[in-house]
């Protein structure tokens, strides 16, 4: 193994670990912000770590079958595979993004979700299955505007290569895709609301309706891994959006800042809106964001 690939591997591992930590960090920050909005104190910043350690130190783990046991592992596999394809900066920080373009990233993202869904299925809890059905329906909804936005980007940059898209945005805020192509940006931001599964689109894991949805049957270690992967996934998704629409980042700290700022947006939207019904969620994405997306794509092509 050459030193170059060795460095790349080390950076990758660091990014993976860092994404876990950063994911937890912004998660607890969000919880604190939510608490402040509600005039509460909120949990300490280290709370997610405590939760994960606690879950990991549970004494019993119950499973309903092989898929429930394997599911979290596969989920972790899927998320890490997604993570390493997203560039987090320049040089080694592009990780392994030269092994797949935007389409690849978009598809490999679903790997983890499928694994999760399978695990939920094996658990045999109807609440979990309902949660998955809701989640998939929501995905079917928000993917349309999201795809429109991404296709617009590909059309504009003549490339599906994330690194190229980042490179095309250099030179100030005005050159960021979100601002240079406002329709595309708006579409992506609206689709992102669905992607982040915050309120008002948190019907998949709605605690009061379907227990906690997909994770109903998962406790202990399984839950711990799910929390970890969720944290990583949030970072991955946000990093991708930052790369695509907000000019990427020259170093990891700016990226972290951008991720955090971007994360605040669905959070605040969620604080304002109550949960949508499933049909409304689905139709919402297929109405306005899609319309805007089509306009954006039309502008991008012609």
């Amino acid at each position: 193994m050459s030193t170059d690939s060795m460095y790349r591997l080390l950076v990758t591992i660091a990014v993976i670990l860092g994404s876990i930590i950063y994911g937890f960090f912004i998660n607890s920050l969000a919880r604190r912000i939510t608490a402040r909005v509600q005039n509460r104190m909120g949990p300490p910043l280290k709370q997610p770590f405590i939760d994960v350690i606690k879950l990991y130190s549970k004494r019993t783990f119950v499973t309903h079958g092989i898929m429930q046991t394997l599911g979290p592992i596969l989920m972790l596999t899927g998320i890490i595979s997604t993570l390493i394809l997203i560039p987090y900066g320049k040089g080694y920080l592009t990780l392994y993004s030269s092994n797949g373009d935007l389409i690849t990233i978009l598809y490999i993202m679903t790997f983890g979700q499928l694994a999760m869904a399978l695990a939920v299925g094996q658990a045999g809890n109807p609440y979990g299955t309902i949660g998955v059905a809701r989640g998939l329906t929501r995905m079917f909804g928000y993917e349309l505007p999201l795809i429109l936005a991404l296709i617009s980007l590909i059309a504009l940059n003549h490339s599906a290569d994330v690194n190229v898209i980042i490179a095309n945005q250099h030179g100030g805020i005005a050159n960021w895709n979100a601002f240079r192509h406002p329709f595309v940006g708006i579409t992506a931001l609206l689709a992102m609301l669905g992607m982040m599964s915050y309120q008002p689109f948190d019907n998949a894991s709605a605690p009061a309706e379907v227990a906690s949805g997909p994770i109903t049957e998962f406790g202990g270690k399984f839950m711990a891994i799910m929390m970890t992967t969720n944290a990583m996934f949030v970072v991955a998704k946000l990093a991708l959006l930052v790369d695509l629409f907000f000019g990427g980042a020259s170093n990891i700290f700016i990226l972290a800042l951008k991720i955090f700022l971007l994360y605040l947006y669905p959070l605040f939207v969620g604080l304002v809106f109550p949960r949508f019904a499933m049909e409304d969620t689905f139709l919402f994405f297929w109405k306005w964001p899609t319309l805007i997306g089509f306009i954006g794509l039309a502008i991008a092509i012609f």
Partner: protein
Amino acid sequence: MNVLRTIALILSLGFLSSILFYKIRELRNLSIIASLSVALGFVIKFFGIYTGIKRAFSYKDLFYFKFDAFSNFFVVLILGVGLLAILASWNYMKEKKGETFFYVFFMLTILGMVGLVYSRDMLSFFIGWEVMTMGSFLVILQSNEKDRFKFALRYFIISLIGAYSLLWSMFIIYNKVHSFKFSAFNSSVFTKGELTTLLITISIGFLIKAAIMPFHTWASGAYSRSPLTFTAFFSGAMSKMGIYGLFIFLYGSIGLSAIYKTGYNEFFQTSYFQYTLVWLGVITAFLGTLRAILSEDIRVMLAYSSVGQLGYMLIGIGLGSTLGLTATLFHVVTHGLFKTSLFIVVAAIIHRTGKTKFHELGGLINNMPIAFIATLISIITLAGIPPLGGFATKWLLYEAMIEKRMFFATAITMLASIGAFLYAYRLIQNLFLGQRKLEHDDVKPAPLTMQIAMLIPALGMVFLGFFPNLLIKYTNLFIELINIDFFKLGVKVTDTAFTNSYGYWNAFYLGSAVVIIFIVSTIYYNLQRRAKIYKIGQLDIYTAGEYVTRETPLNYSFNFYGFIFDSLKPAIKYSVTNFITRISKEFIALSDFVRRIYTGNGQHYAIFTMIFTIITLIYFLS
């Protein structure tokens, strides 16, 4: 000895033995399997030979057959899938009512298909086409479904319309070039209008077989009412004949330049005709997927899924670029693999349980582990999730569409493939996961032959996921074979990486990365030393403290995506099927009206005679 004659002989022997021994199960099946596998081996052995026309049979110089790699590609698919389907039928059709003639007609279908794939003239192509349609029609009648006649008839009538559309265009061509040979076709003798007519009629003929919307109305019924092992073949190999026909007729004989002559769009660098094909494919992919998502019957879902998947293939053909055609050929293979596997799995489940609806099943993972694995691999391929073979199709297709600047179409196609994820999940969830029904506690695993038949394609899919380049090498060769003079570009494949002007993708590295990450995650996962994992019963789930019994229907499987149904309800009520049904009803009403011309009154007939006399006299004496 002539290769083609040998293959024809081997297959005919199989066919004859299926007739001769139609009552002796072992002898009949073994001879069919032997003949198919010998023919398959033969084709594979001579796979590389593709030069020179070999005339196999001559009737006034009408019939020409050619043994080349492009045909062999499809023949391997036909024989391979046919072999698997017959293998699976051994147990599936056992002691069912239509068993004896099932094999006869199955072999007839295969004969017709092999004939049409090797043929290089329109007449023998048409004969093979009709034999295939007839054979499959007869096979559908061998199933045990009550309403098989209705759907088989629908299939046959619509196929007939397609075949006649084809026949019509054949005569238009024959009338001008005075030959049925593909190579005799010369687009310069046709006017623009004639070419347009030709393209439309030819496409209708093939799109009907490929069940592209709006010609798909036969598909759900015919796929679901056939004996299901045959449906594996039907969907896995036979529906591709439409695609093959489009390849041969559009790009093989008519040629891109002729297609471009009918109208060329500068911006998209395609003709309007191809543009229409692409959009038909996109609409099919999307609406087929939507129908599949909303169906409650496993067979119907798979049928609509096939409709949708054929849409992807049509898109590739419509694009007409090397990348697009490669995508189509690749998808022909992957779809052949996963649909065969899935239909055989479903056949096994229905064979063992007798249930066909999603909400009547569930929790079969422990009963049928092999079927579960096959399904898992198949749906991952179906949904196009990277480490397996399905993603290569998706990647090639999207890149091809983007290359042609068809961005809207790309977006909707991608959405359709997300939709495929939805129904794929339902397929595995409602059949294998969730709560097992009480009456299915001692369901036996799938029969051995079916297990073999469902696992072999699964292995193929895994293999293709890591080494798609091996297939791409061949598809590049095929595309060179069928006279495409425009895009000689080819898909650049260096080792395992795919590159084109828009993007890149490295199948092997990505696949290996996933495997390595999986291993690492597993190790991490099991780090905790004394973790004790309890396997608990299926009823030990969170039920808000309520106690439930096995009789309680605890599966969420009926109206699974009810949200989507509710949301799209105003749109869903319009369907082509309803429209066609309406039209046929109106037509029958018309026929009733026409029938009344014959009033049964002699005086009226006399009046008719007089009127006719007057008309005739006026016509001839003026």
